[in-house]
């Protein structure tokens, strides 16, 4: 564990030294802070409908109000929670599935590998977003939890493939054989010897999955296949679209959540850019 922590710390240092990654960390960190501090940062409750409908931006309502009389700015702040939650949870789940399948497939080889790899390749070419839509059409009740599960079910393949090839490359390293000569157990070899060497790859795959999940969630919510009662950037756009926000001139309502999504995405992409450079020094600009 200490080695993992140490490698994380040193990786972070490396990340921080790249300006893009640094910017990304600051951006994503900013969103995390906003999400955590939402109750204190948001001027109003995001669901309170106590205000006038479709008010233009003003000092009292920085981004105006929705057609239900909710404060757009407060919703934007609270919406960060949903997006980050979905990103973290779906990203985490996707990464977990990818790790389990990738590592199993890479370490065990033989028919287990063949079967898992076939599964992965199939999952990779089956278009995820349409599948999400179809699945959501059948699942009777909608919510963030369902979206997270659907995103996880459809999103793991790429990570699994990348981790598998890394696993294969690492498992044939002499130090793995050497650890066997030290009398280490298989689990210890996989988790203590191999896994720490995949940290940056796992981090990159987590980031990629999180970004995919955030955009996927927003897309599903936007189409109305989520739970429109949850305050998220996706549902904000859904409501804005449904309430003719643009025609009514409430441009801030539709512009802000999209921009927030884009900025969060850019932040994550920047971090991944840095991770890429760590794991592949040739990319350094």
């Amino acid at each position, binding site marked *: 564990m200490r*080695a993992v922590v140490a*490698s994380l710390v040193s990786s972070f240092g*490396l990340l921080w*030294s*790249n300006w893009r990654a640094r910017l990304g960390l600051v951006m994503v960190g900013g969103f995390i802070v906003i999400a955590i501090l939402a109750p204190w940062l948001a001027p109003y409750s995001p669901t309170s409908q106590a205000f006038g409908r479709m008010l233009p931006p003003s000092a009292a309502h920085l981004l105006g109000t929705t057609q239900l009389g909710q404060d757009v700015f407060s919703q934007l702040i609270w919406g960060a929670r949903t997006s980050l939650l979905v990103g973290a949870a779906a990203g985490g789940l996707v990464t977990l599935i990818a790790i389990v399948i990738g590592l199993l497939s890479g370490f065990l080889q033989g028919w287990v590998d063949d079967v898992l790899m076939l599964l992965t390749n199939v999952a990779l070419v089956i278009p995820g977003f349409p599948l999400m839509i179809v699945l959501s059409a059948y699942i009777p009740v909608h919510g963030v939890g369902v979206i997270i599960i659907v995103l996880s079910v459809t999103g793991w393949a790429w990570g699994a493939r990348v981790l598998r090839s890394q696993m294969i490359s690492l498992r044939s*390293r*002499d*130090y793995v*054989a*050497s*650890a*066997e*000569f*030290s*009398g*280490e157990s298989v689990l210890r070899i996989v988790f203590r*010897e191999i896994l*720490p*060497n995949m940290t940056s790859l796992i981090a990159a795959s987590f980031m990629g999955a999180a970004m995919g999940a955030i955009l996927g969630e927003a897309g599903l919510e936007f189409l109305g296949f989520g739970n429109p009662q949850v305050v998220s950037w996706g549902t904000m756009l859904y409501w804005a679209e449904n309430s003719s926000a643009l025609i009514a001139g409430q441009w801030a309502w539709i512009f802000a959540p999209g921009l927030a999504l884009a900025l969060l995405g850019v932040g994550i992409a920047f971090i991944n850019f840095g991770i890429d*450079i760590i794991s592949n*020094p040739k990319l*350094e*600009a």
Partner: protein
Amino acid sequence: MQRPVVSIEDVVVTYRSKRRHTALTSVQGMSLEIGAGEFVGLVGESGSGKSTLANAILRLLTGGGEVERGRISFNGQDLLALSEDALRAVRWQDIAVVLQSSMNALNPVATVRSQFRDVIRAHRRSSWSEQQVDAEISRLLSLVKIDPKYASAYPHELSGGMKQRVAIALALVLDPRLVIMDEPTTGLDVIIEHEILTDLRELQRERGFAVLLISHDLGTILEVADRVLVAYAGRIVEDRPAEALLNHPLHPYTRALLDCYADPGADQVRITYIPGQPPNMAALPPGCPFWPRCAEAEERCKQGRVPPPTVLESGGMAACHHAAAEVAAVDSARISGAVYVKSSTNPNVNREPVITVSDVSKTYHRERRPVVALRGVSLSLPRGTVTALVGGSGSGKSTLARLITGMERPDRGTIRFDGQDIPRLGRRGLHAYRQHVQMVFQDPFAALNPMNTVGYTLIRPFVNYGRMSSAEAFDRVRQLLEQVGLTPAEAFFGKHTGELSGGQAQRVVVAKALAADPDVLVADEPISMLDVSIRAGILRLLDDLRTQRGFTLLYITHDLLSARLLADQVIVLDRGEIVEQGLASDVIRSPQHEYTRLLLRSIPNPRRRMLPPKAQVSH
């Protein structure tokens, strides 16, 4: 001296990393000249700056390297100042290169022919007809002994040796004045390496181009080169005609390097090895960079500037305070390091075997083609002796090591240890078996997890096999570290394995294998990845440890010299079959099988020059 083709004056090359904000000056002022038709060898350890220099000549530096200072002129033009277009005309037309890695030097998506064609086209030989071009390609391929039909092949369809020959042919396509060869035979089988170099030398003599051959192996260089340059820590420390260098090495480093070679067939084999570590370019000591390892170092060597090159009357130069004096005292046979002597002995190889291999065969299936690795091999390892398993690449020697250590199972045959048949052991049985049979890997850095510390790496066998707590194991690890010469042990305990030098890392690997207190140690080419200067040290360590601890050693190598130094008995493997076996001194001194003789001939041996020097350097 003839008018030089290339003259390099005081070149300094620095690598800068934006990410780590570091700068590493890997070439610290090298000067040299290469005459027309001259075959020059440049030898040095890894990090000595030799490849950097080669790349600097054609401005092919990568990874943030830049020429900070100096002048590289070709036919009077300063290559460093040329425009991109003007330089392009010089490239290949005048100076061609053969790169280190034969595996990657050819464009994988283009045929051999098209890699010849594009260079012909680029240098405005467009007046040639298709047939002319093809005929020329065929001629060149024949020249390097490749069937011209391979012109339409893709690189992946060629073997490593063929690729390297193609690369050489490619270098000659425009009849360049100079061909730079950067470790052109690294990674190839010794025998093939020898063949290629022999052919190259012949070709060079016929066609008269100059060669700058770069290698870490002084033996190789001395066999083929007219003149030898020795690089150390980013500088040329000696530049002499080959003959003179061989007979009267002036720089202590050169001498030490030469002392690492010996004739394995001699009655008494004696080599020395250089103490200490190859220089850390980021933290060079003041004074002569070699002094920490130099037996002749005096106070003046340890201070001030690097010793200036002393130009010798007899031709060449050496950068050592002693150089001038050395010329006078020609027969000075001062020993520059620890000696490792092996005399002809008659060891008892008739003891009871600890491991018996009977009629073992193994076939791999690569891309659906069966590759026979071992065919009916039987041997036994007598307790407490050293057996050297010798063979070229593809001989099956590493496969045998993997079978004996239980990493793989044979298709047929038995491997017995202590009454057990190893291939039949399950996971548990193998775990127990490995307490008795341990392995030393070829590449120490690959064998050590860079995420772990030395301490952790060494504690684990004690915890797993000795049922000790980490605290109990600590003391044993300390002893072990001292035993393998890593002192003070405390300084190494917390180091990550990536922070070690190659020699240190291999010592850790040896220590780790010994931690289990094995009966048998299998060492698979344990020195081939190490710098020449530290190889003997590791061999000596293995020998000493075996004497102290009495384990049985299976030493796998392609190098008969080291086999002679270490082994009691030698088994020669060729294409999966044992062709010869017997006492080390017998087999090596009077080989019976043709393959063994071929192996012996292929060992780089500075004392046996391939060709008499053509034209001696004259002023």
